[in-house]
């Protein structure tokens, strides 16, 4: 077996130089809950692993101008324990919390979930619905990328050679805004989404929706930000007509596959139902805010 190198740089520049300078495949290691499985199965054969967890700011959560910055490699257990973040962005936090077991939560990160680029990743539709951006560093410096622009297909991302995510920015919320994420699985725990749905909404003083984002997971090669579903919510108090339009728009956007978790028809129907339920939770949460 050719030897596998490992580096644990302590500066971003050093990490970028290592990743960009590798002659073969170089993989970024955060929590490793996907990477180590792929290494063992032989699905990926890197020559270099760059452990990012020693980089400043990449582990932990800080408040920033009324919003939050989550270090890219911060484990799920730390994210769920953060009271301020859980209050402001319950959808993002509950999506992360759904991933795997307690053991997985001790290591798994938002950046790993995003860059593993599974169409069924739970945290990704929630981040997209919440308008989260990723701060990407690489040989050409730093750029801010909306999360929806990162995955390009199963296992593929838009990040170039030498690039990786250092942190996520969650903007300051307007007063009456909140989010929610629901995942449908045929059991209660430890499974992969048949469909996932993230919704964020902003309401006015009368409870009418003034802005919305709806993102579906596991129904296409990448998570889908569904503009038609958001449009169904804007201007409504989530009445029956709005729910019906939302359901139809969500179903219309689906381009799923049939696999052991569900058929195309089943996933499509579930997407509509899940969108309605998720929107109801997001509206209820937003309405409780002042």
């Amino acid at each position, binding site marked *: 077996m050719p030897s596998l190198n*490992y580096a644990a740089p302590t500066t971003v520049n050093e990490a970028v130089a290592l990743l960009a300078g590798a002659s073969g495949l170089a993989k970024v290691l955060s929590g490793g*809950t996907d990477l*180590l499985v792929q290494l063992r199965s032989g699905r990926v054969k890197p020559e270099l692993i760059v452990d990012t967890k020693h980089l400043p700011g990449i582990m932990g959560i800080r408040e920033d101008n009324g919003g939050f910055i989550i270090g890219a490699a911060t484990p799920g257990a730390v994210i769920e324990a953060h009271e301020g973040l859980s209050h402001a962005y319950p959808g993002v936090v509950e999506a992360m919390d759904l991933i*795997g077991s*307690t*053991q*997985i939560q001790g290591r798994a990160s938002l950046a790993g979930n995003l860059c593993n680029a599974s169409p069924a990743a739970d945290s990704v539709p929630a981040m997209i619905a919440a308008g989260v951006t990723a701060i990407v560093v690489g040989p050409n410096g730093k750029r801010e990328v909306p999360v929806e622009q990162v995955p390009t297909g199963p296992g593929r991302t838009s990040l170039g050679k030498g690039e990786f995510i250092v942190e996520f920015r969650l903007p300051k919320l307007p007063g009456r805004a909140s989010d929610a994420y629901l995942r449908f699985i045929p059991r209660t725990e*430890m499974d992969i989404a048949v469909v996932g749905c993230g919704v964020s909404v902003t309401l006015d003083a009368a409870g009418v929706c003034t802005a919305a984002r709806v993102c579906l997971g596991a129904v296409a090669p990448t998570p889908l930000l569904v503009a038609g579903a958001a449009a169904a919510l804007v201007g409504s108090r989530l009445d029956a007509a709005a729910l019906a339009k939302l359901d139809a728009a969500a179903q219309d956007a689906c381009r799923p596959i049939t696999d052991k978790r569900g058929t195309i028809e089943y996933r499509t129907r579930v997407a509509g139902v899940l969108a309605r339920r998720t929107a109801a939770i997001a509206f209820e949460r937003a309405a409780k805010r002042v």
Partner: protein
Amino acid sequence: MSKHHVSTTINNEPVEFLCETQETLLDVLRNTLNLTGSKEGCASGDCGACSVICDGALMCSCLMLGVEAEGHVITTVEGIAREDELHPVQRQFLEHAALQCGFCTPGLIVATKALLDANPNPTEEEARYWLAGNLCRCTGYDKVLAAVMDAAAEMRGERQAA
């Protein structure tokens, strides 16, 4: 690449070892350090038989590289008992016969210890969710849950030691 030299703390003892990059912490524990209490069930983070506590967080040692242990504080099942005295979780597992073949037991003991450190008074539902990543193929979970709830009660001083 030459082997990595790693300095870490395992079960309150300073430990140094050499490992290849691709060796997991579980490989190192079992094959290099002869700490064979942690088991390899699935080697993919699904079964929990290799559970360890690292810096207070429960994790699968099969999903962590040995080289990542540098500078961290790790507890394995071998570090749960104090001297000759079993931990209440271990005694309650014995009392309830909460095991059959025993392969999943070290992981369940470590995961339960982590649960009760984080939440001394869990509901049974909370305990079931916490332990969802620890799979048992023979006994099932009823006796395990009885042991967990009684260990919690004992540690809160609400129940006599087993």
